[in-house]
């Protein structure tokens, strides 16, 4: 298994997609921080007041947490791309035990997602801490439970990547997988999660549960408690991964 994980990492780093998506994640983190902190003194700011715990949690969770969907795209492209580029045949010829291949992919992208989150958390902290301090707002990693939020972001981003990898294995087709991910995360789920009467249920949806885990609070959306959000999101990710594994076992590579 370590051999197969090394092979998957070699696949990942021998094309450039990982780098572009990491740069996009970093740009989102930096851009969101610049806007949220820059506009924090005006009316209509992006987060709750940044002197509060809720404000600081949102700053980290939405800033560094932006890596989640991009990590999911990286993983989906990596797994479903094997069918698009027809490399699946060579991969399953080298390792006919397909369950081992898919398990190696799931672990690889789980780790890659955690790596994305680490980079984005570091950028987020490097921007937010000195800037807020210069504005006279007391902020520290240890204060307001910020460290727990950063930890939750790493778990959440890793689970996003796991979900993307599982979905890629399930659908086996790169473009529909990525289009589906984007439509769901950026259109369907935001729409439905803002419908007040449904929120008792919609907070269990994967992306909303992930927001519960990291406490990425948005106005008008009810979130689960972090631990419950984490459990629910992990259950979704594992269910999709298991479905992807099962589908791969039965797929004809033609």
């Amino acid at each position, binding site marked *: 298994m370590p051999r197969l994980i090394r*092979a998957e990492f*070699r696949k990942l780093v021998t094309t450039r997609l990982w780098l572009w998506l990491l740069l996009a994640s970093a740009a989102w983190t930096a851009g969101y921080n610049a806007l949220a902190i820059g506009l924090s003194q005006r009316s209509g700011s992006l987060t709750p007041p940044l002197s509060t715990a809720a404000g600081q949690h949102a700053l980290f969770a939405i800033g560094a947490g932006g890596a989640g969907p991009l990590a999911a795209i990286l993983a989906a492209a990596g797994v479903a*791309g094997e069918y698009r580029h027809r*490399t699946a*045949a060579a991969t399953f010829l*080298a390792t006919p035990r397909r369950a081992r291949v898919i398990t190696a992919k799931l672990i690889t992208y789980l780790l890659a997602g955690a790596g994305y989150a680490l980079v984005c958390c570091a950028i987020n902290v490097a921007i937010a801490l000195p800037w807020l301090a210069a504005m006279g707002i007391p902020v520290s990693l240890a204060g307001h439970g910020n460290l727990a939020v950063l930890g939750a972001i790493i778990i959440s981003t890793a689970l996003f990547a796991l979900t993307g990898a599982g979905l890629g294995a399930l659908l086996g087709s790169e473009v529909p997988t990525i289009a589906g991910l984007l439509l769901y995360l950026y259109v369907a789920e935001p729409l439905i999660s803002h419908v007040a009467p449904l929120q008792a249920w919609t907070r269990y949806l994967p992306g909303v549960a992930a927001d519960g885990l990291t406490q990425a609070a948005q106005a008008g959306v009810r979130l689960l408690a972090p631990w419950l959000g984490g459990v629910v999101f992990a259950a979704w990710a594992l269910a999709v991964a298991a479905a992807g594994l099962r589908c791969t076992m039965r797929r*004809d590579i033609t």
Partner: protein
Amino acid sequence: MLSGLTKRFGRVTAVDGLSFTAAPGLVTGFLGPNGAGKTTALRMLAGLVIPDAGTATIGGHRYAALALPGRQAGVVLEAAGFHPARTGRDHLRVYCTASGYPLRRADEVLEACGLSAAGRRKVRGYSLGMRQRLALATALLGDPAALVLDEPANGLDPAGIAWLRGLLREHARSGGTVLYSSHVLAEVEQIADHVVIMNRGRLVRHGPLTELTSGQGGLEHVFLALTTEEAQP
């Protein structure tokens, strides 16, 4: 070795009770018109397509049950299956890692397949012949005992075809098994020891090339007679 191998796609039976054995030390040419089921049969042999009935084994084991698949069988299915943005050398190194071969095997097979100069270029810029060579290089990584090749000459230039012929002959002479499909009958006549002919999913002829063509007008005549006669209801 294939035994009673059957695969249906929806209502179409692509391969219907196919049985034959490709013996070690011989080059077996695998022939049939387009849509006869050759590729599906080879993909079942390689464990990529799951048969509805029958078995396909290499050295007595299904591909998926081989302990060291890359050492027991090298499979070339098409001159595709490369990420366009990955270099040929990196493609090979990925599979070296997956199979536990030393990374220098990648450079060795690039050299053996005449791709040393192109190895560090992205596959996007490869010609069809170069892709075919890279597919062969991937199959050769594990120095396999058997070679299973689906139209490996497709896209190769005359020098490439001569090189491939030498490679396959040498492989059979050193005791390896070679099973390869082709549409180029003249090519098959030059190199195959045994010939398997398929039509509409079924085996229509299997035997030594010399026996098949003796007293008749060459392989093309036999092939056309068998495959068009069988096509009649």
